[in-house]
């Protein structure tokens, strides 16, 4: 029981990190960035590529993991900004359908681009955290799990600080409320949106590296399912709401953990998607989301 909760929290913190990017981008330009899950995959592959280039394998050091993670975050962040610049910005005033289709195209491009570069088979991630652990309250906690949860928590706190306390964060919230009004007040809308893409993609990249180190293997389609799950998490928490995304991620991790225990692991994805559909049917604004008023 406690073990299920703990496992759920670990998976949930990955979901939460990815969901944050989804939720931020959606909150600010009302775009479902389908490519977001693939940014997570890219993060893992950037880490893999760098480590392989230095000939490192089967490493267990945590500082190295942190360094690689920072590197991945910067790289994926820049990639995210590039995607926004090339694919999304020209279409910002187009019908919503056009942007969604572009996002699908970007997702496809990233997935199969990585496939062409690294091949279709799963790769072993070079950093594998030690599985030494200790027992607390009947659950087994490994040191690596603890590290991952702490990293995720720190990243989320930093993000919360940026959004709540800095002028950039205030600009983001202003654009989310009213892009034109924000622009009239002197906010550089394009730059703030680029910043949002950078932060969201960096978080996803960090989650990718963490997932690589946690699960040990990465492949070019690993972002697809987690993109869906992260979206589910964002919807559960209330899309556009940062704390909602964190809460939703953790909640979805727990739900999956219990769902897999009750119905069997092969039904885990069905369980969480069914949950998504139920949530959208009965409470589309999510747990913490504000009521959305459609502007005409």
């Amino acid at each position: 029981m406690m073990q299920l909760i703990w496992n759920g929290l670990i998976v949930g913190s990955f979901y939460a990190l990815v969901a944050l990017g989804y939720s931020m981008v959606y909150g600010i330009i009302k775009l479902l960035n389908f490519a977001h899950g693939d940014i997570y995959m890219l993060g893992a592959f950037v880490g893999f590529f760098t480590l392989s280039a230095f000939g490192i394998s089967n490493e267990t050091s945590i500082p190295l993991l942190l360094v690689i993670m920072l590197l991945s975050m910067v790289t994926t962040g820049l990639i995210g900004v590039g995607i926004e610049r090339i694919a999304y910005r020209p279409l910002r005033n187009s019908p919503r359908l056009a942007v969604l289709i572009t996002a699908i195209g970007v997702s496809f491009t990233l997935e199969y681009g990585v496939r062409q570069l690294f091949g279709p088979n799963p790769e072993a991630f070079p950093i594998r955290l030690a599985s030494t652990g200790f027992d607390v309250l009947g659950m087994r906690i490994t040191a690596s799990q603890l590290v991952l949860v702490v990293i995720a928590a720190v990243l989320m706190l930093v993000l919360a600080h940026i959004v709540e306390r800095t002028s950039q964060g205030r600009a983001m919230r202003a654009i989310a409320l009213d892009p034109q009004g924000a622009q009239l007040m002197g906010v550089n809308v394009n730059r703030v949106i680029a910043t949002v893409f950078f932060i969201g993609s960096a978080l996803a990249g960090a989650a990718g590296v963490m997932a690589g180190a946690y699960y040990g293997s990465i492949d070019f389609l690993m972002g697809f399912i987690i993109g869906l799950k992260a979206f589910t998490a964002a919807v559960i928490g209330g899309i556009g709401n940062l704390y909602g995304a964190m809460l939703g991620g953790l909640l979805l991790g727990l739900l999956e953990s219990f769902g897999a225990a009750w119905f069997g692991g092969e039904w885990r994805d069905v369980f969480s998607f069914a949950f998504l559909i139920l949530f959208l049917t009965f409470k589309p604004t999510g747990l913490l989301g504000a009521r959305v008023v459609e502007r005409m």
Partner: protein
Amino acid sequence: MAGRLDQALKHAPLRAPSPLFDRPRAPRGVFTSQTGFLRALGGLAVVLLLVLPFMDASRYTMSIATSALIYVMLCMGLNVVVGFAGLLDLGYIAFFAVGAYVSGIFTTVLGFPMWLSLIATICACIIAGIIIGAPTLRLRSDYLAIVTLGFGEIIRITANNLDITGGPSGIHGIPSWEFGGWSFDDGFSIGGIEFPGYVVFYYFVALVVVVVGVIGAGRLGKGKMGRAWKAVRDDEDAAEAMGINTYIAKISAYIIGAVWAGMAGQLMATHLSAISPNSFQFLYSALILMAVVLGGMGSTPGVIIGALFVSLAPELLRDFAEWRFLIFGVLLVVVMLFRPAGLWPATAVLPWLKRQKPQPPPFTSAVSAVDHGEPTVPPSVMESVDGLPATDAEEGRQP
């Protein structure tokens, strides 16, 4: 006063004055009208497809041609959902899977004949369309996109896990159509030409179904319901204000898309006689979407071109098979950025028809009267409705 007007109206046949309808007939020739040209083109395509088996009836050609036809059917269905109604469906392959699995289960596990499984397929697709559409179509369109994505995964994983669907290995040995004691597999020969089972029948059945599907979807798009779909696509709030029940419009588009995909699934199940969950990955939903977007959303000829491109590209570009999906992804972005209406946009006008000046409206029509700013028609025509003399109407207005 008002009573007299009512009286007069009661006896007057309520129709517009005839001069309003005295317009020249629209041109109908093959090269002088858009519709005529498209019809001729479609007819030519059907004739060519009918002749194809007599030119090259190898198993390879027939198999590719049949799957291309199935792609066309799928794309026409998705075109109704995405192109006409503007709903982004990313799990479209799920309905294809429902069709294929229902027909597979009905014919192998339950042992029903094929024609019964056809009805079951259509019913199952309608039900599936309602189940997935009813809760989500009230939401914004981008939520729908991701819910359908999740739904596609649910169907695939369920098919992978259940026993009745054969698990990961799927269903094998789906029987072909049977009439009396003769089945498609037997084949037959007329006048010395041998028609082996694999060649002609699935191909011809697919051809007939697809032709009906293409014409049906095109005509649905032009009818009352199609206009409602397009109104909802262009501006949902305005459409609602015009009295369109947007929910009904959306769900009907969704169900029609589901039925089209189900028919395509049935065709594929009988064509390949084996299905497995791997044929229903998200990849294929994206490919179909790609075909619709590339060809031109809402444009029947464009969508057919897109479907043929997507289904035939891997055969024609064998050397690039590995790169195909990457190229498709880039193409999706590029098309959306530079030519969002697709290769053959829905609003396209044939180039040689563009230069023609529109015919001037007839002298007595309301249009010319308004255009010239002065009544060029006698007042009696303007003010009288057939059978209701102008003087009567004038009297009615007096106190």
